[in-house]
């Protein structure tokens, strides 16, 4: 597109040390069905471009939605002027950009059936059937189906000579049944958190069966007992629960911008500071976390980040030791890393990209171990599935998590369902208490499509994953 060259040429002429333009069209379709009532069937298309100029160690970012030569040139000028203003503040504090080569490339999320090509009637018909299936269970008072289909079409150019053409997509179905019984109300949700795939994934999920399971489990849950006072217990955490725990307690603390204090005023900082690199025991020896923006079907897999840096795979925690961060071109140089791990992502065209969590997952155990064997090997504990309440302090140390479905374990058996369970722990205690992880056969991805961060606020997506894992001596109990 001619605007790419026009903008980069103008930025260079003005004296930018570096500049890029990201032309981005974002299409979202959100369908929300509640108790057979279609609360929302909405398509949103946001189209525009953001231009970044780097000058004298500072950024300026301007965005526009008007596509003509005059508007593009005015936006370049605005970004340049803002960068100049930024550079006038505290001249001793200059940013640097990690070296990067140029790329001419394209990336397209592998999609067999484009969700946007599937007729709305087909989607709604499926959603209605799922709703009806859940509402057919006596005691289910609310059935919800929430479906998001998302597509980003991006053209990127930088003054390094990079030219990228990226089409990125994901889809996310979520179904919830809520039961009311004797003054209590409890929900159960099917939520894999979204994947960078097409409608073929929805077809493979057999959501009618999932609806029956969710409804049955909501009814079991609302009639279940809680656990009573908090004591130290063993936890076995399912991949679709552990995804959120690793997101909050490993993903965010290892974002380099937080480590540097760039999020100090809002999202917070990190206890995992640079002097801890290569020596801090973050977890037990079996704990290995990998950042991987090449992961198939991963929500952060998009070929290149919004710095024009290709997706990579690296150890963030290796054999339990803090190994490296997720970084961007500007954050990397603050610790003299010399290269970026390609974690700079923006949500919409009008967002300046920021340091985000990559696809981040816990490697499976290396010894054969099934979930059944893990439970059989546990005397007294709680098995947790699904997402629940989550909260963590602004240094990413102390946290409390709930879950979506719980079983008490006694003498190697699941003996009774539970509800209203919370566990409390902190870094590095929690990951050091991990003493068993099931093997590769049981590794499952779990996506996060609503990771909020930054001012102005942005929403990013990434995939986590693990096999079921066991944690010893954790504070577990019922809520109030």
């Amino acid at each position, binding site marked *: 597109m001619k605007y790419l060259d026009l903008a980069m040429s103008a930025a260079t002429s003005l004296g930018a040390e570096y500049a890029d333009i990201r032309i981005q069209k974002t299409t979202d379709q959100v369908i929300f069905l509640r108790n057979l009532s279609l609360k929302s069937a*909405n398509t949103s298309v946001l*189209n525009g471009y953001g231009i970044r100029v780097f000058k004298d160690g500072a950024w300026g970012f301007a965005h526009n939605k008007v596509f003509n030569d005059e508007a593009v040139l005015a936006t370049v000028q605005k970004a340049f002027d803002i960068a100049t203003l930024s550079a006038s503040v505290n001249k001793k504090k200059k940013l640097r950009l990690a070296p990067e080569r140029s790329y001419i490339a394209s990336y397209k999320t592998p999609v067999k059936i484009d969700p946007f090509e599937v007729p709305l009637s087909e989607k709604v018909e499926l959603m209605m059937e799922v709703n009806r299936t859940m509402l057919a269970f006596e005691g289910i008072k609310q059935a919800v189906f929430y479906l998001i289909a998302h597509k980003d079409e991006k053209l990127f150019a930088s003054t390094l000579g990079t030219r990228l053409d990226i089409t990125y997509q994901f889809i996310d179905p979520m179904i919830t049944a809520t039961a009311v019984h004797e003054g209590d109300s409890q929900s159960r949700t099917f939520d894999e958190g979204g994947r960078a795939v097409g409608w073929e994934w929805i077809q493979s999920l057999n959501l009618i069966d999932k609806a029956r399971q969710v409804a049955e489990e909501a009814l079991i849950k609302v009639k279940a007992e809680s656990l009573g006072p908090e004591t130290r217990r063993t936890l076995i955490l399912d991949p679709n629960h552990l995804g959120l725990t690793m997101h909050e307690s490993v993903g965010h603390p290892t974002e380099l911008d937080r480590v540097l*204090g760039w999020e100090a*005023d809002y999202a917070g900082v990190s206890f995992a500071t640079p002097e801890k690199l290569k020596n801090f025991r973050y977890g037990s020896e079996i704990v290995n976390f990998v950042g991987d923006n090449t992961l198939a079907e991963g929500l952060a897999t998009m070929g290149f980040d919004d710095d024009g840096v290709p997706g990579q795979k690296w150890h963030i925690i290796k054999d339990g030791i803090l190994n490296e961060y997720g970084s961007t071109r500007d954050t990397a140089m603050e610790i003299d890393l010399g290269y970026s791990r390609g974690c700079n992502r923006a949500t919409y065209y009008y967002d300046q990209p920021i340091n985000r969590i990559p696809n981040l997952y816990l490697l499976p155990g290396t010894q054969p171990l099934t979930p059944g064997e893990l439970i059989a090997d546990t005397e007294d504990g709680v098995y947790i599935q699904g997402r629940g309440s989550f909260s963590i302090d602004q*240094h990413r140390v*102390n946290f409390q998590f709930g879950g979506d479905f719980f079983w008490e374990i006694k003498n190697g058996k699941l003996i009774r369902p539970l509800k*209203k369970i919370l566990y409390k722990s902190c870094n590095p205690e929690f990951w050091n208490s991990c003493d068993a992880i099931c093997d590769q056969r049981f590794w499952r991805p779990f996506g996060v499509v609503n990771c909020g961060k930054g001012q*102005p606020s942005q929403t990013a997506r990434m995939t986590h994953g693990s096999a079921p894992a066991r944690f010893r001596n954790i504070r577990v109990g019922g*809520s*109030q």
Partner: protein
Amino acid sequence: MKIKDIEKYIREHTQADDFICFVSENESHETRFAQNGITQHIAGPKLSISLELSFGEKSGSCRVNQADEASLDFLIKTAEDIARLAPADLEHMPSAGPAKLPKVENCAKATMKLKPKTMVDIVQKSINKAIAANALVSGMCEKHLLKSWTFTKNGFAGSNEGSSFGHSMTLKKGEVETKVSYEAKDYAPFDLDQEFARLKSQAKALASMQSFEAQKIAVILRPEALQELIWYMTWMMNRRQSDEGFTAFTGQMGQKFLGEKFSLYSTLKHKSLSAFPFSSEGLPSTETTWVENGVIKNMPANRYWAQKVGCEPLHIFNMYIPGAESSEEEMMKMVPRGLIINRFWYIRAVDMKVGELTGMTRDGVLYFEDGKIKHAVNNLRFNEIPHEMTRRILALGAEKLASPAMIAPTVLVDGFNFVDKTTF
């Protein structure tokens, strides 16, 4: 295309039986700084045109951010296509008709006139003050100008213009970390010297931190802290969710369910408080009593649910929690010991049915005993039920603008339930 032209184009080109259209324009300037330098600096205009239309009881909607004819054609066609394919909505409501809307003043001249250079100067001065204090400062300086219009097929027409200015600073000196922020529609009262003095004062009070175990203890919640709990509580106070048995408010309409000292209103009378003149459904904003002396007088309900259960459709457009005259010094003398909380952080619902929340303290916790501040303590986790907490309010302090849409007082609460501590 201008707003009137957009409205005319949509009216002329849609075949739908009914529609509601929401148009907004936003011009922002946002300067983000961290560790004494600027890290992000953003400016630009945004436009959003949302159209929700229906054929009979079948609805569809679309949003675009371009106002040329091709984009509006796409907007109308996409929404119409969706509506034609959608099943009939059992809860469909016709769009709102003409309504008399309150006059509100959400725009402040000083904010509108604020230039990028002035904002960067404010950032430079914030950083200079931090450097002079041998500290690091991170924060945000932002300005937003918003214009929005809503119109419907049935004749509703409403508009609003608003401004907002925000400035926040988190100071880090040694192990001490604390924050102040200013957020209002009007930039004029903003006084950086005063803000930084408050920041330094907070930092000084936090210098001598001692370890403190989680326990039930009296707390003085400053307005910013109370605000965050009440936002979550009102989210759970939805009329439909309550009527359907999903929240703690089920069956509590008209009951004294909250504390005698707690009242909550939405009001158009406070000049400093922003008030959108109408809801997203086209309901005029009106003076509303939600809770008075602990009695639930109203709960928010949309038009569908209000019609179904025979109540008035109402929405929360801002919050006013009246205070009283107790100072923090007086509050500290009312209980043997307690904590002063500046803010909370990462609040999440633990149990919707019970109304229980969890979260952390942030930006400084002070321990007092025998009427005097003794020292700072580490941050703590709470698991607490806000509506029950209001029954334990012992005293109310002066009210303050906690955010553009919330006025709240400082409150003294007995037996606040802290359940865990962290390391800093």
